[in-house]
């Protein structure tokens, strides 16, 4: 099996140990050694693998995201050059510039960066957990659950803080229900996918019903939220998300990244190497559901970022495994770029960012299908 361009073959090949096979065939997996601690419990320890390509891609995407952010801050009714923006950020601007940058535009950009990274991280975790490149929280019902919670708040006439709370609560409750329903002597990828899809269908019906309950104004507001929008985001939206990701991201990256990469090679092998597979799945599912729900609370269920960012990361780094950190950087770049495009590309119309990611994501999906067709899978 050739190493490059193989993963489209693995697309949709549900349950096949595609990652593991590829990893071995490409010879890219760094050696993993099992050592015994003093307590005698085997733990997995590996050489800290620094892949130059992955690091370069991650840093590149991060810089791209920041560049998009600076451009977004500099554009609008009060245009500023990137140099001015940077000067103001560093504290050298006048009071007017200071106000525009720090109070009006910076919160939106920070929200975009963090939401993009959180969604991409959640997507990368789920795609790895269910071992299917299409397994992202938007398709598995978690974001639909967040939307149901938020819509309930909108129909009840709550404010935006209550809406965010409703979204997080809805997402977490849905996550728990799906997890329990999919649990049967352990959590397995197939069942999580199918239960999630069933839950998505039910929740879509419920969401449609809630939309018909509200008055037209409320429905329009709910619709804007459902599409995913960053309009008018202030520090009160950005800060809770920042705080939560600051806790969750280290847990995922430092605590779970390596066992997750090992688990992709199969449950039995992972167990043999000392990974507690079910515990790992529980922690990661909880973290990914929280990340997706918090992102949805801040910006609405922005579609397709969670699906495409991990794919792009994997293609660009040419590295097997979940690529968690790179995926997060790619997600941040994607969302800030999409937000810039949504604000500026369509003349006077300002589209919600979700429309842009939806169209881009749909196009990406079609391209994937075309790639599959070329590969002779269809």
């Amino acid at each position, binding site marked *: 099996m050739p190493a490059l361009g193989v993963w489209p073959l693995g697309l*949709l*090949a*549900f*349950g096949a140990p595609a990652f593991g096979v590829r990893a071995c065939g490409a010879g890219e997996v760094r050696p993993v050694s099992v050592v015994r601690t003093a307590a005698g419990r085997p733990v997995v320890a590996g050489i800290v693998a620094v892949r130059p390509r992955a690091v370069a891609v991650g840093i590149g995407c991060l810089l791209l995201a920041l560049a998009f952010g600076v451009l977004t801050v500099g554009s609008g009714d009060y245009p500023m050059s990137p140099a001015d923006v940077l000067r103001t950020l560093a504290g050298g601007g006048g009071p007017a510039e200071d106000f525009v940058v720090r109070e009006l535009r910076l919160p939106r950009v920070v929200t975009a960066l963090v939401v993009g990274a959180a969604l991409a991280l959640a997507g990368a975790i789920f795609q790895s957990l269910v071992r*299917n490149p*299409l*397994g992202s929280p*938007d*398709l598995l019902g978690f974001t639909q659950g967040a939307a149901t919670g938020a819509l309930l708040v909108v129909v009840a006439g709550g404010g935006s803080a209550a809406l965010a709370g409703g979204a997080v609560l809805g997402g977490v409750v849905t996550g728990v229900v799906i997890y329990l*329903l999919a649990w*049967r002597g*352990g959590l*397995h990828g*197939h*069942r999580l*996918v*199918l*239960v999630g*899809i*069933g*839950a*998505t*269908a*039910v929740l*879509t*019906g*419920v969401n*449609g*019903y809630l*939309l*018909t309950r509200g008055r*037209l104004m409320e*429905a*329009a507001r709910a*619709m*804007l939220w*459902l*599409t995913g929008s960053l309009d008018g985001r202030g520090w009160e939206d950005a800060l809770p998300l920042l705080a939560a990701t600051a806790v969750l991201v280290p847990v995922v990256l430092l605590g779970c990244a390596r066992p997750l990469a090992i688990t992709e090679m199969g449950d039995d092998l992972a167990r043999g190497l000392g990974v507690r597979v079910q515990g790992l799945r529980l922690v990661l599912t909880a973290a990914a559901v929280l990340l997706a729900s918090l992102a949805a609370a801040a910006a609405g269920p922005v*579609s*397709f970022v969670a*699906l495409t960012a991990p794919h792009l990361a994997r293609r660009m780094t040419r590295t097997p495994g979940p690529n968690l950190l790179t995926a997060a950087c790619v997600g941040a770049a994607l969302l800030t770029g999409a937000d810039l495009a949504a604000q500026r590309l369509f003349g006077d119309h300002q*589209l*919600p960012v*979700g*429309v842009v990611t*939806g*169209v881009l*994501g*749909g196009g990406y*999906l079609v391209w994937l*299908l075309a790639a*599959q*067709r070329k590969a002779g*899978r*269809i």
Partner: protein
Amino acid sequence: MVVTESSQLSGPVRAPRKHPPKARPAAALLGTVFGPVLALLAVLVLSLGLGARPMSPAEVWQGLVDTGSSAYTVVHEMRLPRTLLGLLAGAALGVAGGVMQALTRNPLADPGLLGINAGASAAVATAAGLLGVATFQGYVWFALAGAAAVSVLVYGVGGGRAATPARLALAGAAINAALYSYVNGTMLLDAASLETMRFWTVGSLASAQSGTVAMVAPFVAAGLLLALALARPLNALALGDDSARSLGARPALIRTAAIVAVTLLCGAATAACGPIVFVGLMVPHLVKALTGPDLRRLLPCCAVLAPALLLGADVLGRIVARPGELQAGIVTAVLGGPLFLYFVRRKVRA
């Protein structure tokens, strides 16, 4: 009985059966035929009789035949079109589900879950929001085109014959998500289309008029006839392509015809009522318990039981949310979801 039959070698040569033929006493056969029909009749009466103004069956009959009766307008203008639309759309969705499950050899195939109804609704949203089409005659062609495009797409993406349930369902979910965000986008651009589309995208029989029924009927009828004609070839296809070919069937032709039938049925039903999920999934499973897997019995039975289910959901929606009503699409989604989860937990083993 079986033993004696197989031991009599002098008799006419018979294809060996996998399972001994089940005894089919007349009572069971009667149950298969009359059970669904009775259920449908009961639901029809309920659907005509229940509503903001409850009527007894006698009053309904008066309203149906007597132009002078006080119930005439209610029955003819509101309840009858709604009931007939439920009948047509239910039959269309149920048979489409049966054909899809046979075509994909996949117990989880459902036109709603696989995004075919969403394809039709995305096309209708385009027509309503961007092109300003507002009549059903305009909608239906868009809906058919959307349904056709998505059926080909999802069948291809899901891996065609090699599809596993999870793979196909996931491909459908991805297409559903893409189309859902597209429909949301068109609704956002135009408040007027939001006002109509937010009711339509739920899936409801409430907007039925006699004109709609007359427009849907030919498409559904054509789709049903095609599907019933395909029952036998699809049975052959269930044995695998090679066996089917040796039985004289042409797999490519059958698949194309089956996709055309599904497109006609789903496109017409969606144009009239909006996207409705789970009817096409539930009914064939329920019917299979009655008739066994033979499509020649299964599909007609679906065509009877599915309207009973859809109209039942509609009636239930009218009862539980009085004085308002719950759209049929929501009732089927909420009731169908648990059944889907039950199938998943029972059938899919790790």
